[in-house]
């Protein structure tokens, strides 16, 4: 079937180049994403901006997790703990109004610290599979907040550490004003930072996923024996996957620290890790788009569900518990009925339609 549109020659060559190169394609998507982000952030209220910031950091962590669990088959229940590490690192830098590093440095530091911890955990976990790695990362999820409590002098104990977000830099406020004639509130600023980090992370993850490394990860997931026979070092592949996803979680934690303005042990409970897993499962294991969808659902759905519950006459308490009930239930139903998640199921259905259309046509 030929395309109906006829493009002028130079444009056709350009789009062909973009179409065939993975990196360029991802960069184009990234640019498109950035534009959408600007449009959305500038046209919504401060409250929504804050919600979008939440969605951004959940998305970054979910992206890392979906790559680890979906592509490499390692189930981690400890990503909440890894986010905590990134968050606390960031908080430690932002204890004074004059931080020693510029923001990009702080974000990098948080990512690197978490990456190192991820390497340690990943090496230990590389020999585990199935329920063992789930159990070990579950223990991690519970153990890390305890560390913050133990070292309560530096890490703030149960009250946690307040995060003094640095002032919006002049050049940024001016740039935004130039483009959109709008002021920049703190919530919007954090929203921009979060989404910028998300776009960068997703481009990197998408590239990795389509590259040789991604194929190795999938091979390890699908059949260990065959992969090893083919010369793949199982341990190294697994550790790399864990490290990459840990770095993403660390970055997510850093953004979270700035968005929430406090890092305390109660912000990183087991529920956070389970929430991330739910996001990933709902969206579809292995799909970055799915991770984004899952993050969106988890940011915006609880309010809706709680509202419905309250209107239906439940007490405040019961309405508050309704949202975990709904997303737990959805997770169970998804695994039973549509294990590929939203994105996976849609892709599967689309592929089946194409195949049946192709076989007829």
């Amino acid at each position, binding site marked *: 079937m030929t395309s109906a549109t006829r493009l002028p020659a130079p444009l056709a060559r350009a789009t062909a180049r973009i179409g065939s190169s993975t990196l360029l394609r991802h960069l184009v998507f990234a640019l498109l994403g950035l534009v959408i982000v600007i449009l959305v952030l500038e046209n919504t209220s401060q409250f929504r901006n804050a919600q979008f910031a939440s969605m951004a950091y959940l998305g970054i962590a979910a992206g890392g997790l979906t790559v680890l669990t979906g592509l490499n088959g390692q189930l981690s*229940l400890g990503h909440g703990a890894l986010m905590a590490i990134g968050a606390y690192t960031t908080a430690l830098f932002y204890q004074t109004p004059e931080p020693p590093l510029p923001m990009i440095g702080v974000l990098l530091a948080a990512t690197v610290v978490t990456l190192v911890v991820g390497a340690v955990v990943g090496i*230990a976990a590389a020999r585990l599979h199935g329920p063992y790695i789930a*159990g070990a990362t*579950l223990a991690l999820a519970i153990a890390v907040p*305890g560390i913050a409590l133990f070292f309560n002098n530096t890490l703030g104990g149960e009250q946690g550490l307040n995060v003094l977000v640095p002032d919006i830099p002049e050049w940024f406020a001016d740039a935004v004003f130039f483009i959109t004639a709008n002021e920049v509130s703190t919530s919007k600023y954090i929203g921009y930072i979060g989404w910028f980090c998300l776009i960068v992370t997703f481009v990197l993850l998408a590239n990795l996923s389509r590259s040789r490394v991604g194929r190795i990860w999938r091979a390890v997931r699908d059949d260990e024996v065959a992969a*090893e026979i083919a010369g793949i070092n199982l341990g190294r592949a697994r550790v790399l996957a864990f490290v990459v996803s840990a770095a993403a979680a660390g970055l997510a934690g850093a953004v979270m620290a700035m968005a929430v303005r406090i890092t305390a042990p109660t912000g990183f409970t087991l529920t956070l890790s*389970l929430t991330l897993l739910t996001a990933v499962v709902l969206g579809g294991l292995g799909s970055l788009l799915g991770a984004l969808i899952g993050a969106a659902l988890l940011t915006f759905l609880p309010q809706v569900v709680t509202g419905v519950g309250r209107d239906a006459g439940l007490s405040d308490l019961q309405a508050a518990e309704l949202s975990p009930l709904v997303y*737990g239930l959805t997770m*169970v139903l998804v695994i039973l009925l549509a294990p590929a998640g939203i994105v996976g199921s849609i892709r599967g259905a689309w592929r089946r339609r194409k195949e049946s259309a192709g076989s007829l046509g």
Partner: protein
Amino acid sequence: MQQFLTITLTGLTLGMVYAAFALALVLIWRSTRIVNFAQAPMAMITTYVALVLIDAGFSYWIGFAAALLSGLVLGAVIERVVIRPVEGKAHINAVILTLGLFIVIHALAAVIFGSRFRSFPAPFGLRGFQAGDVNIALTGFGIFTIVSVLVVMALLVALFRYTNLGLMMRASAFNQEVARLLGVKVGRMLTLGWALAALVGSLSGLLIAGGSLVHPSYMDSVVVYGFVAAVLGGLDSPLGAVIGGLLLGVSLSFVSGYVGSELVALASLVILMLVLLLRPGGLFSHAAERRV
């Protein structure tokens, strides 16, 4: 000296409870090769069933029996309805499923029973004994805990080793195809395995609750410690679960008493990692490892 004694005894009693929970995990693992992370909220909800009855005026033992019975039923229902479709498929699906159940049962309990902290009765008394100057931190209830877990373990061992039913359950776990060929109703054996496991889990829930505060999250940390205990002893071995539980209970009690209670979870993680790295099959492993 007093502190050492107190810490050891506390650790032993607590260890017994972890042992009970680990037993439940081992039972499910042996029958269906799944780790049931939802075991904790299942136990929590059966404890609430008991609490409802006790509130209504019935005696502790009626509540106790009701909790165990509802555990039996709950385990059977969950296996048949929710878990059956994913048995035999990718491991990861089953794990995620049990985690989803964890969230659902948790939230359900909070909606139905409320989040208030409730106290829970403990028969046989909560006073420690006094031997001269030394205070023995073992309560009547603590002794009941130890005895009941040992009894249950003995019953399970007897079931598996000496009865026909136990033989059929072991056969179904070992090789479903062959068992089916030999006339074993494999499906029923699996359901029975989950039902028994849930019953043991309910027992552990009641033992933890006694003399303590009950609320929807009270069993959450036990799932980790029970898991570590089960792995420590070997996921295939009921005896290992008990020994593992005791060892873990005492070690964690020492960490809590001498180092700091915040590091207990970290200590359990370290123990888990050590076991998995040095002796992945656990202390009492039967099955040979799969090596590639």
